């Protein structure tokens, strides 16, 4: 936030806040309201609707300044996602021409910057739109290549009671149609185009104060840039018109299916082994479960949130003649030992892929809380599991710890992650001393394509299947 910017308000957006905004705006994109689906996105968790941040910033400005004036224009850039539960603050800076710049900060970084200008006339909530909540419908997932520049209509909806609840000051002095038009933009991006796999980047709206009521906003694809999966969309209603920019984010990553895995794994090479794959419902844990099962191992995999993903992996393994089962398990839960005893008592091998969402640090200071978040899983969880395993097997057990080449070359934004992984490696060295009969393998994996590493632009240099297979073979042939 600029030094001369005045802090207007601070808050933490909760899942309940996001659900209320989804109801008002009609943007039920899973990225905002479904933590299980959101964990499979680039962001690892639910993020606050950009237009919710914008409306809250404008509400905070109205509450602080009692300006009571209709907007003439709003121009906003959503610079960084705000993960639900993160503390945010908004500041305002007014320039001599009356333009106000709102800056929203989260975790020490600018997450949104908005320029707002005001009309000369005092606003009044006269122009009514359809007094209802938008319908709750699944988001579209139409490839951008399929869109034409045809004009589409979206019914404008506005529920005054719900609006007043979230934005009491705005609803007093901005017209319903202006508010509905602004909120319709998040519904267009999150539910229509790009729809399900979308990120809102930027919005420029020019308002028409005193406009008549309108039933719908129209939207039309203006520009599609394939190399960046970026679009510009023109929006228009009686209340205003403008342009929004959005991005089609990568869909959740897929690992190799059993059919493909079986072609790469020698039948029977892992026969007679009972392996517990912690974090096996997706990503490299999923791939590991499939490789081991393809080689004849009996696999028990765990999931924390992704029950459907786990069922999909187990189903794929069984369909191809493998043996697999799954159970819900949280390495940080008080019930972890009971769950292990109930569901994994026969296992003498553990592959450890448990991870919290991998978040960027600020790259300038080492964040203690972020390091501790990782260490609770990568270090404390690993030790706990190894000790449980040792108790099951009189010290003769097999442990596979998924580490990272980032231990050697920490990326600037992931120092905490690299440090926690280095700590987990140190734990493994200690475990080897404490349990000399155990076979402990630390796999320093390169950056492989998973939900956690998927990026908007970068390509992947390594093949997941051959890389993980080589590590597992190295572990179990030792």
């Amino acid at each position, binding site marked *: 936030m600029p030094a001369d910017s005045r802090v207007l308000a601070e808050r933490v957006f909760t899942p309940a806040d996001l659900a209320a905004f989804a109801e008002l705006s009609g943007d039920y994109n899973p990225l905002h309201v479904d933590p299980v689906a959101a964990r499979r996105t680039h962001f690892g968790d639910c993020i606050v609707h950009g237009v919710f941040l914008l409306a809250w910033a404008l509400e905070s400005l109205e509450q602080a300044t009692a300006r009571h004036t209709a907007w003439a224009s709003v121009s906003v850039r959503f610079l960084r996602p705000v993960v639900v539960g993160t503390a945010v603050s908004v500041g305002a800076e007014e320039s001599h021409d009356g333009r106000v710049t709102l800056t929203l900060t989260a975790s020490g*970084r600018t997450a949104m910057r908005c320029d707002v200008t005001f009309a000369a006339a005092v606003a009044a909530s006269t122009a009514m739109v359809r007094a209802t909540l938008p319908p709750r419908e699944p988001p579209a997932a139409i490839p951008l290549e399929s869109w034409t520049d045809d004009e589409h209509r979206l019914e404008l909806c506005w529920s005054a009671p719900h609006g007043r609840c979230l934005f009491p000051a705005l609803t007093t002095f901005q017209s319903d149609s202006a508010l509905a038009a602004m909120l319709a933009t998040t519904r267009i991006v999150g539910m229509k185009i790009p729809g399900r796999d979308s*990120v809102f980047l930027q919005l420029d709206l020019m308002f028409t104060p005193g406009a008549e009521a309108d039933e719908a906003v129209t939207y039309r694809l203006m520009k599609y840039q394939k*190399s960046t999966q970026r679009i510009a969309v023109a929006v228009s209603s009686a209340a205003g018109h403008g342009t929004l920019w959005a991005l089609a984010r990568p869909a959740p990553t897929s690992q190799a299916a059993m059919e493909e895995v079986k072609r790469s794994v020698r039948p029977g090479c892992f026969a007679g082994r009972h392996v517990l794959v912690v974090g096996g419902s997706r990503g490299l844990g999923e791939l590991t479960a499939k490789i081991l099962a393809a080689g004849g191992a009996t696999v028990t995999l765990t999931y924390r949130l992704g029950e459907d993903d786990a069922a999909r992996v187990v189903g794929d393994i069984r369909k191809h003649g493998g043996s697999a089962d799954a159970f819900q398990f949280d390495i940080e839960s008080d019930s972890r030992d009971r769950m292990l005893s109930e569901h994994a008592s026969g296992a003498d091998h553990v592959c450890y892929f448990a991870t919290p969402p991998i978040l960027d640090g600020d790259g300038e200071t080492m964040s203690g809380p972020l390091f501790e978040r990782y260490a609770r899983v990568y270090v404390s969880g690993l030790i706990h599991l190894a000790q449980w395993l040792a108790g099951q097997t009189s010290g003769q057990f097999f442990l596979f710890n998924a580490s990272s080449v980032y231990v050697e070359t920490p990326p600037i934004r992931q120092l905490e992650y690299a440090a926690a992984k280095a700590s987990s490696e140190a734990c493994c060295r200690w475990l080897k001393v404490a349990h000399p009969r155990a076979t402990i393998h630390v796999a320093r994996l390169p950056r492989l394509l998973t939900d956690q590493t998927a990026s*908007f*632009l970068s390509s992947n240099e390594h093949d997941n299947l051959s890389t993980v297979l080589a590590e597992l073979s190295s572990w179990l042939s030792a």
Partner: protein
Amino acid sequence: MKVDALFSPILDLKAPLRPEDSPETISAWDSISHIQLILAIEDVIDGELTTDEVVSVTSVSKIIEICRARGVELTVE
């Protein structure tokens, strides 16, 4: 135009940018910021970057080069 003025709002700059700066040296230069940088570059050149140009946006010096080829001179401190 100063390159800092263009990118400061996106990258939360605390020190002037250097030509050699890149996603590896600027902590805020992540993949979302990268897209925002491309939008900002397109604003300043008043046109759309080609696919090759988008791919080559890997450092401040490359950005300066791309803008120069489009007739816009960006300077560092």
